[in-house]
């Protein structure tokens, strides 16, 4: 517990109103999405932070860091991250909630660079950028995530990765309050130049602070970042009608189309993914598993249950890639659509009409689908099937409704609110190595098998097993699919089963050489995966020890439990 003198010192740094040590505030910062995954006892609550501080400037953070160098406390910064990795790892942790640092500092339209503070959300930056004909990569946790966090501090996978890449590679300079308290600007801005590179003259240290997964607040605080922008050649804004949670676009946006591509086999969808990337057709893409497709077709869980129980989606939509095509001119858009259609045809796929199909239709076709193991394989053999399909028309409103669902996922990143939590209240994820597009599907197949026994016992939601979600990156040079599952947050048996699935998948990932999963960060995971990956965990611990000898930053999600943590806070966990 902070003493009166210590509290006064902290208040002198940031101002009295920005230091919170009252119980209700600290309790509010002790609960996170899936936080029960962090302990063997299935407890919902994490360690209660010693205090919550909302600094405004890097200089304030520098002083707070120096305070923790002298005292038996640690800092853990976070911005929008209401996920367990943002949780305090110890009762000695002072959380830095960076929500007061919310400025878009600069948008360099000509050079396509934005400089932002930690609490600038993707959706806010994107909305601003569209006015300038620009766009930004957003990661798949949704449009409300911090651009600085995904660029400089953690993960970086997202649906626009097809054309905009992994977010770590979009970093163009970063301002860093080091664990010592020194403020360092890395890259070109550190030399007084503009924000155009994280690596300045001489040896680059980008890998030190960012690497693959990031430092998750365990190695200082990033206070500004330059981020590479991409072109947006459509309308700067749009209008909708309807109401929450289903808004509908009033009209299509120019130079922008969304396509639902269906393939009879894994080989066909992967081949198509590579070809689309080669032709640079995919502004963003998402391998939409069958269950999520069914979810997108329905407005509520009752409809979803009825639709899913027809069994049609399990057979028809096993290999679906939703693709957003964006042209920087009308002509380019038309060419890309043409190329996409050709690629789908060559790959033996089918473009689903962008029509909200009446649910009753699925009952009608159900008997046909029951007769065949892979009905899509037969359907795609029908001559002129694509042309016939293209002629299917329902109302304009029905068309716009489905288009809007896809638009919000593929362009505005409102994916989790629509898909992740609606069906069962809880979502977990697993596998998710950043590797080839083919290996993404290997991971999806593997985790589907791991999930199956729990599905059969009714412990987790029956999503068909394969809820592998992800897409291509860098126009097909890389791919990413993570193994999602849906469970009941209210049912201890469901939580237990989920934890067992994730644990099994961690070991299975190693046994099957499926790469470093999304959960491969923090002490226990580094210890597990490091020996199979050049002992990277040892390097992380050396970096931490060298740069933060006084444990001024809580490192449970980076190098492992902090030196300063209590003994009971140094136990292992299974993050999902």
């Amino acid at each position, binding site marked *: 517990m902070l003493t009166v003198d210590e509290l006064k010192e902290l208040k002198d740094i940031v101002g009295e109103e920005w230091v919170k040590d009252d119980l209700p505030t*600290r*309790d509010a910062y*002790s*609960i996170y999405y899936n936080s029960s995954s962090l302990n063997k006892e299935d407890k*919902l609550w994490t360690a209660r932070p010693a205090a919550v501080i909302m600094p405004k400037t890097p200089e304030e953070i520098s002083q707070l860091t120096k305070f923790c160098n002298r005292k038996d406390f640690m800092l853990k910064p976070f911005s929008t991250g209401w996920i367990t990795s943002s949780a305090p790892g110890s009762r*000695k942790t002072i959380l830095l909630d960076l929500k007061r640092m919310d400025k878009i500092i600069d948008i360099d339209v000509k050079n396509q660079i934005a400089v932002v503070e930690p609490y600038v959300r993707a959706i806010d930056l994107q909305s601003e950028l569209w006015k300038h004909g620009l766009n930004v990569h957003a990661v798949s946790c949704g449009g409300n995530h911090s651009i600085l966090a995904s660029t400089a501090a953690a993960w970086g996978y997202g649906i626009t990765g097809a054309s905009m890449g992994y977010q770590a590679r979009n970093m163009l300079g970063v301002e860093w309050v080091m664990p010592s308290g020194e403020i360092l600007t890395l890259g070109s801005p550190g030399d007084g130049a503009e924000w155009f590179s994280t690596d300045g003259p001489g040896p680059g240290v980008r890998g030190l602070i960012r690497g693959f997964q990031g430092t998750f607040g365990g190695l200082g605080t990033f206070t500004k970042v330059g981020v590479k922008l991409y072109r947006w050649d459509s309308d700067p804004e749009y209008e909708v009608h309807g109401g929450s949670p289903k808004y509908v676009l009033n009209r299509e946006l120019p130079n922008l189309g969304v396509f639902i591509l269906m393939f009879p086999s894994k080989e066909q969808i992967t081949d198509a993914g590579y070809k689309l990337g080669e032709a640079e057709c995919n502004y963003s893409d998402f391998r939409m598993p069958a269950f999520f497709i069914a979810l997108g077709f329905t407005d509520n869980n009752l409809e979803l249950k009825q639709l899913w129980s027809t069994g049609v989606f399990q057979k028809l939509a096993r290999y679906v890639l939703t693709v957003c095509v964006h042209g920087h001119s009308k002509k380019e858009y038309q060419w890309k659509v043409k190329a996409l259609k050709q690629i789908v045809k060559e790959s033996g796929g089918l473009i689903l009409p962008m029509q909200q199909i009446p649910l009753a239709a699925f009952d009608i076709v159900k008997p046909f689908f029951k007769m065949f193991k892979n009905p899509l394989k037969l359907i795609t053999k029908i001559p002129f099937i694509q042309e016939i399909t293209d002629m299917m028309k329902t109302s304009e409103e029905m068309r716009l409704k489905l288009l809007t669902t896809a638009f919000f996922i593929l362009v505005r990143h409102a994916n989790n609110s629509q898909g992740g939590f609606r069906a069962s209240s809880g979502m977990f994820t697993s596998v998710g190595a950043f590797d080839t597009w083919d290996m993404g599907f290997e991971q999806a197949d593997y985790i589907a098998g791991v999930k199956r026994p729990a599905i059969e016992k009714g412990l987790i939601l029956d999503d068909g097993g394969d809820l592998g979600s992800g897409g291509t990156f860098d126009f097909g040079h890389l791919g990413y699919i993570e193994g999602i599952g849906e469970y009941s947050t209210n049912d201890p048996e469901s939580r237990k089963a989920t934890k067992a699935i994730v644990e099994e998948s961690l070991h299975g990932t190693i046994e099957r050489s499926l790469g470093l999963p999304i959960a491969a960060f923090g002490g226990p995971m580094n210890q597990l995966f490091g020996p199979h990956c050049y002992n990277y965990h040892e390097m992380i611990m050396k970096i931490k020890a060298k740069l933060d000898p006084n444990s001024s930053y809580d490192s449970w999600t980076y190098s492992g439990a902090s030196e300063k943590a*209590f003994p009971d806070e140094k136990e292992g966990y299974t993050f999902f």
Partner: protein
Amino acid sequence: MINKAGSMVKEGWTGPGSRDATIKPLTLVEDGLHIDIGAKGMYEWWYFDAHFETGHTLVVFFHAANPNPGMGGKPGVEIVLLRPDGKKTHAFVPYGKPDFTASRDKADVKAGANYLRVEQSEGELPRYEIYINEKDLGCHLTYRAEVNGWKPGTGVSQFGNLGYFAWVVPFARASVEGTITDGSNTIPVRGVGYHDHNWLNFQFPTIIDYWMWGRIYSEHYTMSYAFIQCNKKMDNYAVKVLMLAEGREAILSTGEFDFIKQDFEYNPGAKHSYPKKLTIRVPDELEANLVVKEVLEAEDMLNNFSPVLRFIAKNILRLKPGYFRLASDFDIKVTRGAKTVKETGTTLHEIVMFKSAE
């Protein structure tokens, strides 16, 4: 005593902090057997007490493995009868393993002809029946729970690698009715009672200096608390647990409270000083004051030991076990939202000391 940094004690609170935001009623299975009977170093017992309108106080233990020094983890029953005139009779009757059975599904224990059983209908509070017939002492009582069963967090506190201690309270308050047998007299009784259940895998004196435990029964509230002071092996950590119920519902389950011991007075019977005033305070939620008006029992527990054990405890282990049963006046003030309610009454509470509490 302030809990120090670096303590090895891990309490079972489900959070946030050392409290339970969600308080779930206990299930029947949690009052079933947990240990393997006969396993070395494991102890478990079911505790019942009752204070009757006749002035009698009765305490009954069903031991799957008796934790007290010299008892060697034996199964059996223990009964203590405190009569209105202050005279006490205490007996432990061991039973061999074949004569002692306990279910893991619920409280269903048999020790020879003695038994403990429970019934509970859906949505109702449980009804316990205990029957003891031993050496001119006995009882046949029915406890009707008036408060939901409770446990602090997961119910289990881990003391580093030295062991764990588990505590569940199937009811902190019940109406009791039946008969007690005192010699040749069978006395109809009615009163208020309590039941808890413990299991652990270490001996108390190895890591605990003393504990203070008690309840408050007022018109609208039931409070149960414990303050367990660990020794230096556990960095002098203090385990604190408190439950407050309003009517049937537990509304507070916490270890975050001030426990203030004042006005110590030496008692030659127990050879220890005890606090004549206790204040328990959960800021903005609860304050209770207990002022001792009578020492009902004060005992040097070494007197219960065999001569050999007494010598070892006193001269080698440097233990001075003392026991107090105290009668106190209390006041309790409960604040919920804008409403504060204050109630008063009298209560009994206990202190067990291996070392001084001053």
